[in-house]
């Protein structure tokens, strides 16, 4: 059971980081990005290709891949989301489903024969043994990465001008626009940041998931479950929700089966929404009538 808990936390932290990227974008643009998993796969694929074909070491390839994926996020915004963006958020969210499907098809062609591909960890091996139990390196690294990412985003939001503008945009986009905030520029930055973070998740997941066009597909359902349980507007809630989902999935899988694990996760999901409609940490939005 201990190994199931360790696996649950390790996988759950990646669900949480992916959820963090989704919630960060949602808070700033109102769009739930269903293409986040594809973006993560793009990041991992770029790291693989840069490492294999440009002979960069894994760390340099990963750093460059994160920047390139952030650029790809910017292009996705400019070419798909920015065009005719005077529609409601639901229409824009549906566009991300299109991005997801298009991205999957393109990655399938690009990765081609021989999938899945191995990609080693970019983080040093710090695996250890405690009480006779092997603790994988990823289990020790991922919490540190999660804290670093949350801390970095926290600093951006609280100590930079663009971060403050983004918070304004997140709180009330219309008013922020009326007050002179360049909302489209901020949205472009948000898409870049969110895509870069998704690439980080893809690269962290690659050693265990292996790189293939569908490497993140099975995660998407659990990531969104974690996001909704944590609260669509809470960055910390996304991470906590992801870890919770990972734990429930891991433990119930160990005790029963995959079907029961899925059932358990979505029972928790439904229960959370019944008790707290905005998620565990989500803010209730009120409107003056």
């Amino acid at each position: 059971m201990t190994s199931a808990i360790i696996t649950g936390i390790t996988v759950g932290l990646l669900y949480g980081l992916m959820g963090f990227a989704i919630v960060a974008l949602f808070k700033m643009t109102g769009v739930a990005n269903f293409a986040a998993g594809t973006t993560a796969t793009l990041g991992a694929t770029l790291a693989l290709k840069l490492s294999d074909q440009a002979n960069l070491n894994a760390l340099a390839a990963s750093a460059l891949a994160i920047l390139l994926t952030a650029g790809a996020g910017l292009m996705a915004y400019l070419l798909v989301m920015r065009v005719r963006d005077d529609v409601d958020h639901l229409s824009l969210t549906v566009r991300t489903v299109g991005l997801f499907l298009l991205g999957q098809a393109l990655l399938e062609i690009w990765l081609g024969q021989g999938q899945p591909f191995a990609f080693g960890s970019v983080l040093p091996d710090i695996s250890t043994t405690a009480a006779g139990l092997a603790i994988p390196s990823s289990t020790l690294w991922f919490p540190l990465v999660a804290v670093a990412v949350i801390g970095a985003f926290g600093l951006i939001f609280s100590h930079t001008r663009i971060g403050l503008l983004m918070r304004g945009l997140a709180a009330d986009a219309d008013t922020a626009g009326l007050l002179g905030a360049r909302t489209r520029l901020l949205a472009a930055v948000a898409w870049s940041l969110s895509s870069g973070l998704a690439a980080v998740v893809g690269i962290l997941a690659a050693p265990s998931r292996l790189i293939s066009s569908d490497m993140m597909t099975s995660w998407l359902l659990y990531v969104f479950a974690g996001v909704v349980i944590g609260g669509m507007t809470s960055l910390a809630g996304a991470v906590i929700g992801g870890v919770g989902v990972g734990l429930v999935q891991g433990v119930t899988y160990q005790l029963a089966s995959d079907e029961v694990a899925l059932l358990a996760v979505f029972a928790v999901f439904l229960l959370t929404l019944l008790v707290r409609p905005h998620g565990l940490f989500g803010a209730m939005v009120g409107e003056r009538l």
Partner: protein
Amino acid sequence: MNAPGTSRWLGATALLLAGSLLVAGCSTTTSTGLGAGSGSAMAGVSQTEIRLGMSNALSGPVAAVCLPASEGAKAWLAKVNDEGGVHGRKVTVDVLDDGYEAPRAAANVRDLTHKGIFAMFGGCGTVSAAAISTALKGSGVPYLFPYAALPDLVEPVQPNVFSLLPLYRDQIFTAIDHLVTKAPGTVYTVTSQIPGYESTVSGAEAGVKSAGGTLLSSALLPATNAPAEQEAAKAGQHNVDYLAMTVLAPDAARMLNGMAKSHDLPAKAILSSAPLAAQSFAAALSPEAAQLLKTLSPTVPPSDPAAQECVDALRKHSPDTKPDALALFGCAGAQVLVAALQAAGDEPTRSKLTGALEEMHGAQVSSLLPTVSFNAEDHVGLDSMFLLTLDSAQQYTVEATVPLQTAP
């Protein structure tokens, strides 16, 4: 006014003409329809060409896995054609994409049979194979050597369907019985839920019993979106001696790498049926798991000298295709097909072709395969398979040739 005799003659002539037109009409319909096979044995055969059809996943989720199967077959047939063909006829294959979707595979069968093919050949995947077999049922069009170990294809024997790949049920039974008997221990079996998986699970369980091992658990993995990390944790807690797998290669790699990370790999060996005999799988596998792997394979690995001719054909005719397991299987299928066409004589018919196949007994018709045997009661061609291990460079090598056993 005509005489009464003349009227009767005219009436009879009219009836004869009408009857002839009706027969001609029916013939035209059947010669272009799916029923053409039984009525027109020479469909797809001209003085210069034998035309085959293939439905394969050239796009979609399994394209990367399945595409090499058709490329391998085409490469070998191109080599044969360069050398003059079979009895002076070029052997051509019309390959259509089914995207690993049953309705598209069935539609491809209709298209190809309407065009007039001699036989359906090759392809990859149980979902497509089941659809193709169903679409061809009763047509008499031979369906030869798909990469699918589907019980419904060969049990009971269908006169027009021939398979090279033994059922996963028998593969995993044989792997367990062959290896666990030598050093009995605890066994944990994992099976992907692909069509026919129930018989694979029962084959694995029967193998453990036959080998004198102790079955700890039989786990199932969904065929898509398998929670490999979670299954790694679950399997790892059992501290097993053997892990017996009939699992799709990407999920198997994820699971085994997860177990390696937690130092939870089986103590003695990882036993597998053919899906794990792919070099792309070996490249993705952790070294700790690689040194425990023992997998059955229908073909020798690409590095084996016996594969050289096929590897050369691939390099020449399909240079972008890596000579991996599926490419070699496609190549091997083409070699068996060419041998059967040669045996069918210079005026091949479908019945001569299937007859020639049923006459193959212990035939060494492909350097890639063990001997091939078919008969009227058994349309699975391989009676043995190669047992492969991975060397220190994670390249497959042949450890033994293992006779296939039929699971009870």
